């Protein structure tokens, strides 16, 4: 699913937190949104996910302005867990879609296996560690096969092994199943490993949007160069 943004603006009080003239998030690619704190990364993600209202501008999802809630999802940095087991958390999106019990059980088991969650399936989700919580939220987001995936700091609380497992799943989703992934990250190493494209935001503006290799090897904008000088080298 391709996303096109035109003249997007968002203000909190007197402060303009987002001002993007034009932006296209290509379908079937992983786009990493990077930038300093307060650059508007999470606000952009929340607006695209329909969780926050924009002040101005238009957003098109595959050419249509209607937000396709049924085909997209977002995983938060600090995910909210349903007060139930991990199994029930992952199953909930299928439950509300009326999926058959056997199919639900099969999908839950498979995803839990892929993400190393099988031993935790019958534990209460609100008593997991931060990393396990994030994996559960990730599994719950993927279980209903959304076309569009918004990830806010994925793997921020995970150990390196779990992070690699999750990144492999994200890569497979984009390359094999043509899912569009937009992820906000402070971890530039993760952006370089995972993303096809990088969008650099600063003070709410889209400063640079290019291929990942170009972003790290030969950034065009001075602001990007300064950011990479501090954060990357």
């Amino acid at each position: 699913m391709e996303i096109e943004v035109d003249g997007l603006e968002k203000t909190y009080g007197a402060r303009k937190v987002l001002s993007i003239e034009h932006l296209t998030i290509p379908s079937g690619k992983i786009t990493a949104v990077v930038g300093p704190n307060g650059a508007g990364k999470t606000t952009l993600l929340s607006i695209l996910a329909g969780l926050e209202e924009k002040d101005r501008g238009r957003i098109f999802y595959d050419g249509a302005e209607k937000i396709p809630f049924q085909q997209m999802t977002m995983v938060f940095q600090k995910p909210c867990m349903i007060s139930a087991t991990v199994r029930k958390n992952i199953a909930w999106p299928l439950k509300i879609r009326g999926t058959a019990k056997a199919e639900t059980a099969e999908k839950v088991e498979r995803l839990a296996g892929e993400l190393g969650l099988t031993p935790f399936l019958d534990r209460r989700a609100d008593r997991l560690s931060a990393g396990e919580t994030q994996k559960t939220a990730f599994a719950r987001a993927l279980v209903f096969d959304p076309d569009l995936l918004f990830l806010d700091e994925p793997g921020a609380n995970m150990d390196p092994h779990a992070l690699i497992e999750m990144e492999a799943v994200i890569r497979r989703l984009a390359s094999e199943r043509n899912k569009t992934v937009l992820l906000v990250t402070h971890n530039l190493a993760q952006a370089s490993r995972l993303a096809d494209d990088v969008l650099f935001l600063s003070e709410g503006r889209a400063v640079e949007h290019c291929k990942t290799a170009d972003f790290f090897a030969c950034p065009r904008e001075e602001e990007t160069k300064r950011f990479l000088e501090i954060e990357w080298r």
Partner: protein
Amino acid sequence: MDIIAEGLVEALRLIASFDREVFEVVLTSLYVTFVSLAIAGGAGIPAGLLIAGHRFRMKGILMRVIYTLMGMPPVLCGLIVYVVFMRRGPLGSLSLNYTVTVMIIAQTLLILPIIMGITISAAGERQEQVRKLARTLGAGKRQTAGLLMHELKPGLITALVSGFSRGISEVGAVMIVGGNIEGRTRTMTTYISQLKGMGEFERAVAVGIILLVLSFAVNSLLYHFQKPPESAGRKEMLWK
């Protein structure tokens, strides 16, 4: 001590003998309390969720008014309702004073702020998180409401328990608007007050014990639903 012991014996005798007068007051008390609780819960929980989930001007003042009304003296509430429905009052033509209906109105007004206030406190930030979660998983309005009820259940049950306790133990308001009329508006609390005035302490203590036992039974039932699903060893509505 003798009076309490004799009251206990009397309570058992009243229950065993199906004492008509006692059963009437018990039924009136339960009827008035449950109907008030249903109305106040039906209005107060959605209103509380709405207030908790939105930012608007005067919200701070509204919250202060609700919290103040949570501690409203029952006699004052009863007096206001009485004045409204007295013959010369604005709704006097309805002739509702000294009926069960006006007792329900008074109790609903007493319970409503309690349910709203506790719902607002219980919902807090959690409500926003749950709504966001439901939206990102593609849930519709009904499914979001179901998830919200599931997630806020302990707080909502606390609100209902508090409302029930306030209603069942209330005496001032129902005495003023209901008048403690035998066979019509007499409740357990107004009956106890009357028995004390008549010096029938054993019977008053007996009715008090019945009141406590009933309150314990209802609270136990509500507490059962408040426990998390796993510890209660039963299936949740959400997963049926």
